[in-house]
């Protein structure tokens, strides 16, 4: 698996898109930090960008890489390699190169800004950790979609749809439910609802780390009571890990049954 990972990673590192992605984060980081000067505001803006952009790039890149490397995959399948190591290697190659672009792209400007001396280092690390989790989750979901759909156009369609659903539609539906049932106690429901969507979960985790969580009012208090505690943080990370593991397990399962 490590060999496949190496070649996929190497292949992606030579592709222009990895650099475009890296350059985008570098630019974003530099602009936000050096033209803004308010670190916590910069982290919030970054969070908003990461929460939307990372899943989108993860899904699109994942689907694109799978379809583009079809020939490479077929070549590998005839070699004495396990199917699971071929697909896991490719998946990790994509996910790790995307995560690296994110971490380097945002990390370098922050280091120059003097991150290690500032108090925001924990907020910032959390931002990068959730960003990496989101990359792992959405690339895995993208591989699932691509493995199940021979047709490229369909695969891309489903991938975009998935992103739209989790990044936009889910929030809308969630909010509607909360408004419709506002007469009932909704603490538990909203907690569970937030836990089930990795994008919402990441956003809540970061928001609650920042001072602005006081602005969230009563719900914020309930959330803080849950997510603010060690127990809440642990549960959140377990959920995020489950979001990575389940799609990865399905990649293994699906790839074993597929004809090439």
């Amino acid at each position: 698996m490590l060999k496949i990972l190496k070649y996929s990673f190497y292949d992606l590192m030579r592709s222009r898109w990895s650099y475009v992605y890296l350059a985008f984060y570098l630019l974003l980081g530099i602009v936000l930090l050096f033209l803004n000067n308010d670190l916590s505001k910069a982290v919030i803006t970054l969070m908003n960008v990461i929460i939307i952009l990372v899943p989108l790039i993860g899904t699109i890149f994942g689907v694109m890489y799978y379809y583009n490397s079809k020939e490479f995959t077929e070549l590998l399948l005839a070699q004495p390699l396990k199917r699971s190591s071929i697909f896991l290697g490719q998946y990790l190659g994509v996910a790790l190169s995307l995560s690296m672009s994110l971490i380097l792209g945002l990390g370098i400007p922050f280091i120059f800004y003097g991150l290690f001396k500032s108090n925001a280092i924990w907020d910032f690390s959390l931002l990068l950790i959730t960003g990496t989790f989101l990359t792992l989750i959405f690339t895995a979901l993208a591989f699932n979609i691509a493995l199940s759909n021979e047709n490229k156009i369909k695969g891309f369609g489903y991938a975009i749809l998935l992103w739209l659903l989790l990044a936009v539609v889910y929030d809308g539906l969630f909010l509607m439910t909360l408004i419709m049932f506002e007469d009932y106690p909704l603490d538990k429901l909203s907690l569970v609802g937030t836990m089930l969507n990795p994008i919402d979960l990441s956003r809540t985790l970061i928001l609650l780390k920042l001072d602005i969580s006081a602005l969230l009012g009563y719900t914020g208090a309930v959330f803080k009571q849950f997510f603010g505690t060690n127990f809440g943080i642990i549960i959140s990370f377990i959920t995020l890990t489950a979001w990575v593991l389940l799609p990865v397990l399905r990649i293994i399962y699906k790839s074993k049954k597929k004809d090439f």
Partner: protein
Amino acid sequence: MVTIENLHKKFGKNQVLSGVNLSITNGGIFAVLGPNGSGKTTLIKSVLGMVIPDKGTITVLGNSIKKNSDYRHKIDYLPQIANFPSNLRVKELIKMIKDLRKPTNEDERLIKLFKLEPFLNKKLGNLSGGTKQKVNLVLTFMFDSPLIILDEPTTGLDPISLIRLKDLIHAEKAKGKTIIVTSHIMSFVEEISDEIVFILEGEIYFKGSITELKNKTNQPDFEHAIASILTENHA
């Protein structure tokens, strides 16, 4: 060497293989023939584990291939259409495959044989079909495995390369290897193969030597013998 029992495979509603029984003994060149869409490639890909059969068992060198990938160390496979990652260079591809399988020095001899030196630093996406096929041949023959599977090896090759390929196949046979070939070029098949396996509508229609096939169909030459099977069964 290879034993296939009661192999069934369906793609959607399309029943491609319906109960193939085949046993291929050690040594010799076996040609798998059949009309387009008869299931030749599916049969070969089943042996390689790229296609998962619905029913039936396949054993290669005494080991069942189910949930197993190590047996592919014993197989050299030449895919039908040489599709390679287009942004890799020829040299890098050869190095990579060696890294994934095992070290060998055979590639240098084969590169010289097929006169591929000028292309080593070119990207695979920029090569012509015939050159890609030569690269494909180098990748296949550079490992010294007891079973060689060639799916349409002649595609795109010029006459000189074709002669070299035939010599190569004969040399491998002389080492006592088993070679399975599919091809639509009947003269090529007639020249190299020891035994014919004819697939029709997902089943083995005929297995035996070329002389036996000629006697069975009462035709004087091989090409007409094959043609007569096809017309009899489709008319």
